[in-house]
């Protein structure tokens, strides 16, 4: 039993940290916040070259065939940098196509994702704000060998830059996940402006959007997407929280009031200790879940729900407490803390919010 990263995993973490420190500084993040597209083509190509986009994809698709732990390591670093990027949604969709897709779907999308030529996303939310299959309102109707999709998907991450969107819909009463090209007629994307300009979301309207009848993944893909999305989001939130903790501790060592560094006051020191506790527990929760899903452990789905619900609360607290430790400076636009505070907050409702995952936990352990 070994909970620590292997040397390869540690190497991946270190190199990701070094790359992001160099290329995704807070100033770059702010530029992308102001960019209409919100992400950088050049950065995306670099991620492809570094092998990040194909990390968990098979080698014959140009990937590295690594697992969810490695993906989580990268996602933590991306969260730590508050990097604006459709990384999580793209990798998630690609992993589902890899797991459930036909050979044709795989050859169409996986090399394109791994090579940086395609972005993808998943449309898991609707008006009901419930992630259960029975709440899906989007319809799939067979029309002469094709399927027409109709419905409205809400808060779809990075839909405005996606080439392909995974769309859960009901055919009769049977759910499936349709693989929809964003350029197809009947698909329209309306971007929203939200709290974190580094996590773009959009409304996706499907007005009889036509897809080939075979362009779908089985219903199992739905739970797969929710679980892996939950762990990915938890990893990003963990990264944001760790960054905020580090900034708060550094600041508490140098900021002086009443003639002493504020970190010498128990009111501040104890807050920092509580933040560390939450960050370490979040680390344990995130990587346990990543490992459990990757290794097919029987509690993988449960652990994913534990991680998302726990880390949502913990990261909000840690990032918020970091602002409190900083005082007034932490409330300014100019200071960088809010980049991470907002990133953690933005991920809370995506891939199942804490409340939904708690309900999933109860269904598993108290039936």
């Amino acid at each position, binding site marked *: *039993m*070994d*909970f*620590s*990263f*292997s040397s390869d*995993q540690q190497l991946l973490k270190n190199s990701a940290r070094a790359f992001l420190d160099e290329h995704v500084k807070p100033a770059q993040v702010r530029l992308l916040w102001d960019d209409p597209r919100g992400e950088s083509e050049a950065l995306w190509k670099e991620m492809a070259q570094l092998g990040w986009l194909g990390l968990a994809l098979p080698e014959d698709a140009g990937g590295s065939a690594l697992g969810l*732990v490695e993906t989580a390591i990268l996602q933590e670093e991306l969260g730590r940098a508050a990097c604006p990027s459709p990384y999580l949604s793209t990798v998630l969709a690609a992993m589902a196509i890899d797991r459930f897709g036909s050979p044709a779907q795989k050859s169409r999308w996986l090399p394109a994702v791994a090579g940086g030529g395609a972005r993808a996303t998943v449309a898991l939310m609707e008006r009901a704000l419930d992630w259960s299959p029975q709440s899906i309102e989007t319809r799939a109707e067979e029309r002469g060998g094709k399927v027409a999709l109709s419905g409205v998907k809400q808060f779809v991450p990075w839909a405005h830059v996606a080439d392909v969107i995974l769309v859960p819909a009901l055919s009769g009463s049977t759910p499936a996940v349709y693989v929809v090209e964003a350029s197809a007629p009947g698909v329209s994307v309306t971007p929203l402006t939200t709290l974190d300009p580094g996590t773009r979301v959009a409304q996706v309207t499907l007005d009889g959007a036509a897809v080939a009848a075979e362009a779908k993944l089985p219903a199992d893909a739905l739970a797969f997407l929710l679980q892996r999305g939950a762990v990915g989001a938890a990893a990003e939130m963990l990264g944001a929280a760790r960054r905020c903790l580090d900034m708060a*501790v550094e600041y*508490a*060592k140098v900021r002086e009031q009443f003639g*002493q*560094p504020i*970190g*010498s*006051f*128990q009111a*501040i*020191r*104890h807050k*920092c*200790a*509580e933040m*560390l*506790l939450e960050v*370490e*527990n979040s*680390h*344990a*929760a995130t*990587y*346990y879940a990543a*490992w*459990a899903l990757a*290794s097919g*452990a029987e509690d993988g789905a*449960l*652990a994913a*729900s*534990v991680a998302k*619900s*726990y880390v949502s609360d913990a990261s909000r607290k840690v990032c918020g407490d970091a602002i409190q430790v900083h005082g007034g400076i932490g409330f300014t636009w100019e200071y960088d803390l809010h980049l991470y505070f907002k990133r953690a907050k933005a991920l809370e409702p995506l891939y199942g919010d804490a*409340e939904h*995952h*708690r*309900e*999933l*936990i*109860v269904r598993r*352990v*108290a039936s």
Partner: protein
Amino acid sequence: MDLNLSPEDRAFRDQARAWFQRNVPRAELKTLEERRAWHRTMYDAGYVGMGWPTEYGGRGATPMQQAIAADEMARANAPAPINGLGVGFIGPTIIIHGTPEQKQRYLRKILTAEEMWCQLYSEPNSGSDLASLRTRAEDRGDHFLVNGQKIWTSGGHIADWGILLARSDPGVAKHKGISCFLFDMRQPGVEVRPLKQITGSSEFNEVFMTNARAEKRDLIGRLGQGWEIAQTTLGFERGGNSMARVTRYASAFDRLVDAAKKIERGGKPLLEDPVVRAKLGNVYAEMEVQRYAALRVLSALQKGASPGAASSITKLSYSEFEKRYYELCLEILGPYGQVTDGGLEETTLDVDSSSGVRSSWAYAFLWARAGTIYSGSSEIQKNVIGERVLGLPKEIRADRVAKA
């Protein structure tokens, strides 16, 4: 990263599981002698003092195997071994700091629980500020004369021996004037009074020492080294039992779910109430995170890391969680959670809470208040984490300023 048990550990677990299933006492153990006999059975089977070196009667087991055995013990709902402080940290303290004579005299009887041990550290005016302790040990040539009062001595009423911190030199800085002794509890001049706690029970005692003796041969380490010794060994109390602790929480959770199915509110079982479900989901997630964190600590111990100050994170985490956990249990159970006797079978707890006592939800709820106070309060743990893990500056303290 690989959280699977190794084949050896899996085999060890299967063996331990089978042993506890076969041997766990069917009837409740009522007397000390019955508990001692069960302790002895476990010791003979190799499940007590497992981490001790073989030369002192242990089996030199890995941290993982110790955790597995403790976990299987909890899983089988087996009564805990007795002499926990003796086996858990006093013995190891003697192994690290003791003389060959002390090892020869004391260690084996700690393991077999032939001699019961207690810890004589806290005093009425020295809680978090333990180093301010005032119990005196005066050098009288052939022995030390001990006068003072100790408090929060768990098991003091059944102890044969205690590990004692006392001031041997009042003339030097407070941390430097403390010495550590092995102290005979069965002598004239030692009076033990039970301390009735908010639980109504008395797991702790007050100990009064009036012209009592500590023998010269029973000094541990050097004169004035007591504080240092206490620091190195306090960490023994933390970390290794975390997995078993979570297993006990999990068995309480199962009881909670059973009760939530039986108890109704507004004509429906509590378990169908969305608010109750949200609370259950929340507390289960927190409990699982305790388990994952325990595995992570265990993995580090297994690799030979010394947890050091980071063990404060573990202690802070589980003790604060336990308080929230039983608060939530009682919140969900309402008045049923407060029944200590005469309640319905399906709404009572009847598992060992962390105190090791077979008991009620109300007891577990009350007992949870102790965890964030004993063995370094949460506030002290946060100071340690802040200073030694995060490297934050030390606070300016009146006692440090005075000595400067």
